[in-house]
């Protein structure tokens, strides 16, 4: 059974502890022996950075001015990223849990135990009794390996990845509308657009360096329309803020489409020549007058009209969106309804005219292309398509009947764990106790497992439940490619060796496969070997990497896929001539508005939405250990509008209890005018009793299977706590240098 019994000991041994300087302190007398150009481990902007290496230790960071995406710019997470490499919390040797305590083990001992348990479970409960849950902060080589490991190594159908919690709604929407899943334009198109329509993307906090392009566009005289329930820094800086009610994007977009049609701001020639299914969408939009839309989404009708005119009248414009519209049970529909605006006005496939989702994780794009997704094979191929199966089996040299069928999404996998259909789990690059919705159910799933093995480089809240923890590598300790949010494939370079007995992730996974007796499918000697096979496996697929080489990437500061041949320059801008459906046309989708699965009622009168802060990255397993970042944002809080706070008699800074149908948590109140009175917001980077996901709704989008993180019903209760928010308390009267010493 996978339980956490000695939490204090686990925290004492593995953190999170705060660490805030290079491994041997801040020193002025360093002799840097190499400068390694690479990319940030965090978000999908994939900023270039130079790591300063002294004696196999990463001791600092230097701006990489020559990488065109960021030109030296970094966010606070990027600047401090190197501090995780030699962090005292790093896992240095394999761990086996015995009598509730993690004990040091040798690699042979740990790997043999994993293999014995997997074999035992598969022998008595079938191949599918083991699940594999991977992530998209891995290099593309590793994500390819994880898909192949699950299917060819373990022979299980149950594999999925954490992009399921991130951008799958965008992926599904893009596939339905365009026949391919990739942002359509390079970011160098942004400054060429007169108008940007940005929906559900708090660019200031989630993609800080993307703001470089946004402000270039502004300097060129452009304007921004921002759709967000909160007045984020991005919304504040924009020209028109549509502060809608969470989960009502379809009504807003349909309302805008209505105005575009009424005022003849559509491009009929483009619609006739390059799209299908317009008439149903047009007829549907006819019913969503600005007044009707306004009633639903809470944005004044005149603002909807103004936004539609601004977007429709511009010669060049781009639509971008992120998790704010995608994390819904209507996530795919939200995406499709904004794509309708793009197609109706024909603003796509040309410089400054375009569309794109802003992918979240570092390799969110690459990680969803090469077969670690439940229904997918390398090259964005489908595991249900006989032709695609045949191609991949040929590359792998695997008999076709041994290739499993499609699995299920991660939230459904955790359901199957509770139903005992999945009894063993291998996870890498995720932290389920923070990131999955409905934390209490997730805990139940983990505790019910017969065997749980985690590959991690820090002990995450999720790995605490594991029976075996295998120490993997941080991003600077291995090489490989990632694909940023524009579709640009970039190269991560190795700066140092893993500390202690930690090993490269790909070695660990391959070693398990080898010991399972599947070594003939896993004879890779380096990430380059994996990349070379990936190129061939992706050949002819939508995400065609065949013509990309590591050298070509370095020479060109990245290559945009598809890149089908060795002399192909890559494809920065898609859809210039054709879309990727067989007839070359894009598809409209007539989308009717449906409310989120939970709407406020008397018992739970507020809409709870969740999101990120700039100082933390996703589940926080890396960033919640870095002193500087934690100091800026040490704990989650709940944003409440002053009107709502006044009704509930809640003061700023007071701890309150937030309750939903699934759970409750205590958070300090941040009383701010920058949120809607009917909405509250809690950032999600923390685990266990600090997790907003104790409250969130695990209901899924029927197509993308993304959970509804961005809208559920909640209420706030007063608890008369006198406890202060963490930092206010810690710093009372003390100088910063005293707090740091102490």
């Amino acid at each position, binding site marked *: 059974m996978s339980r956490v019994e000695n939490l204090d000991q686990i925290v004492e041994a593995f953190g999170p502890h705060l660490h*805030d*300087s290079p491994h041997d302190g*801040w*020193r*002025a007398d*360093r002799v840097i022996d190499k400068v390694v150009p690479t990319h940030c481990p965090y978000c999908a902007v994939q900023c270039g950075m130079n790591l300063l290496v002294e004696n196999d230790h990463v001791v*600092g*960071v230097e*701006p990489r*001015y020559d990488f065109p995406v960021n030109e*030296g*710019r*970094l*966010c*606070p997470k*990027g*600047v*401090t990223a190197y501090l995780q490499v030699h962090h005292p919390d790093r896992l240095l040797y394999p761990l086996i849990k015995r009598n509730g305590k993690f004990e040091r083990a040798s690699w042979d001992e740990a790997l043999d135990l994993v293999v014995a348990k997997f074999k035992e479970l598969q022998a008595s409960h079938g191949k599918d009794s083991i699940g594999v849950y991977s992530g998209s902060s891995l290099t593309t080589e590793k994500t390819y390996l994880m898909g192949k490991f699950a299917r060819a190594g373990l022979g299980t159908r149950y594999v999925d990845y954490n992009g399921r919690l991130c951008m799958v709604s965008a992926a599904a929407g893009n596939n339905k509308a365009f026949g391919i899943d990739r942002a359509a334009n390079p970011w160098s198109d942004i400054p060429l657009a007169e108008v940007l329509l940005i929906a559900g993307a708090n660019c*200031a*906090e989630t993609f*800080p*360096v*993307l*703001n*470089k392009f946004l*402000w270039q566009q502004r*300097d060129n005289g452009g304007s921004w329309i921002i759709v967000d329930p909160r*007045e*984020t*820094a*991005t919304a*504040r*800086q924009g020209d028109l803020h549509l502060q809608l009610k969470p989960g009502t994007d379809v009504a807003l977009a349909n309302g805008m489409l209505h105005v575009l049609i009424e005022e003849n701001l559509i491009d009929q020639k483009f619609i006739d020549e390059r799209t299908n299914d317009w008439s149903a969408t047009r007829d549907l939009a006819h019913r969503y007058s600005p007044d009707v839309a306004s009633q639903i989404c809470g944005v004044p009708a005149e603002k909807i009209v103004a936004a539609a005119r601004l977007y429709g009248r511009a010669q060049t414009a781009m639509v971008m969106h992120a998790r704010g519209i995608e994390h819904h049970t209507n996530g795919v529909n939200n995406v499709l309804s904004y794509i309708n605006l793009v197609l109706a006005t024909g603003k796509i496939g040309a410089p400054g005219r375009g569309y794109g989702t802003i992918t979240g994780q570092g390799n969110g794009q690459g990680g969803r292309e090469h077969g670690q997704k439940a229904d997918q094979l390398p090259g964005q191929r489908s595991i249900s398509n006989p032709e695609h199966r045949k191609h991949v089996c040929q590359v792998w040299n695997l008999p076709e009947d041994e290739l499993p069928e499609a699995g299920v999404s991660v939230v459904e996998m955790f359901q199957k764990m509770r139903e005992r259909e999945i009894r063993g789990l291998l996870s890498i690059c995720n932290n389920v106790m923070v990131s999955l919705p409905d934390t209490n159910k997730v805990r139940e799933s983990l505790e019910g497992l017969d065997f749980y093995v985690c590959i991690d480089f820090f002990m995450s809240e999720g790995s605490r439940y594991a029976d075996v923890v295998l120490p993997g590598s941080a991003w600077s300790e291995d090489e490989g490619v990632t694909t940023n949010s524009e579709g640009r494939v970039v190269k991560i370079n190795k700066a140092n060796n893993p500390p202690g007995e930690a090993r490269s992730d790909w070695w660990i996974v391959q070693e398990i496969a080898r010991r399972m007796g599947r070594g003939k499918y896993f004879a890779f000697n380096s990430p380059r070997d994996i990349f070379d096979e990936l190129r061939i496996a992706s050949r002819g697929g939508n995400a065609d990497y065949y013509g990309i080489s590591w050298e070509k990437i370095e020479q060109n500061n990245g290559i945009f896929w598809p890149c089908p041949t060795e002399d192909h320059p890559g494809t920065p801008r898609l859809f210039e001539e054709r879309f990727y459906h067989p007839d070359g046309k894009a598809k409209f989708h007539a989308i009717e508005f449906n409310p989120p699965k939970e709407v406020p009622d008397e018992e739970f009168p507020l809409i709870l939405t969740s999101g990120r802060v*700039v*100082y933390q990255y996703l589940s926080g397993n890396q960033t919640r250990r870095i002193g*500087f970042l934690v*100091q*800026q944002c040490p704990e989650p*809080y709940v944003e409440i509008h*002053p009107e709502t706070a006044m009704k509930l008699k809640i003061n*700023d*800074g007071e701890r309150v209890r937030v309750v939903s149908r699934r759970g409750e948590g205590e958070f*300090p109140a*941040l*009383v*701010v*005018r*920058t949120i809607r009175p009917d909405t509250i917001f809690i950032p999600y980077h923390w685990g266990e009793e600090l997790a907003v996901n104790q409250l969130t709704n695990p209901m899924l989008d029927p197509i993308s299977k993304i959970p509804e993180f961005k809208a559920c019903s909640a209420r706030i209760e007063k608890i008369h706590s006198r406890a*202060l*928010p963490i*930092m*206010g308390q810690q*710093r*009372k009267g003390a*100088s*910063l*240098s*005293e707090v*740091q*010493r102490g």
Partner: protein
Amino acid sequence: MEETMFIDPQRCIGCRACVAACRECATHKGYSMIFVDYIDRAQTTATMPTLCMHCNEPTCALVCPADAIKVSEDGVVMSALKPRCLDCRNCVNACPFGVPKYNTQMHLQMKCDMCFDRSSEGLKPMCASVCPTGAISFGKYEQIVPLRRTKPVNVHVFGNQRVETKVYLMLPTDADEVKVDGCGVFEGMLTQGDNEVPVESWIDTQVEESDKNNEF
């Protein structure tokens, strides 16, 4: 004209990348010489970076009894020289911008020297290198003017004191100087309408307390 800093508050997204990057300078021992404050978090997400404005006649140097604060040939006002600094904190208290800080552990005044070590090698200062939005930029006056829709201003009037600085603030095009009237700052606070008592949000104090103590 030589290169200098341009601060554009409207572009600031409050990410504090500049604060983190400033610590990377080997001589700072992990302390940052730049500060980012919420203006009033209860009302807005607006934030603003503060770094040394490098005055043409620096008040900090004028009030230093030990002559510990030197100005370079290019007009960069340096940190206090360690052998000379008397721990008196005159500079900390006198600076009209509230920039120099006193390090209680190192017994030393510390402030921004515009990354003298980097700029002397032709590199941009760390804060201006990393700033995602260009809220902090480093370059020449004549290069930045055509790029922006704002106007660089370097005259600040604090009551009776007029301060010209090497560093520019980017302001609306009709502005010629920044006026901070001695009592006006508080006057605005006292006459605020709507029966609202202006209360500072806890999150403002959370990250800014050391700035207000003028201490590291």
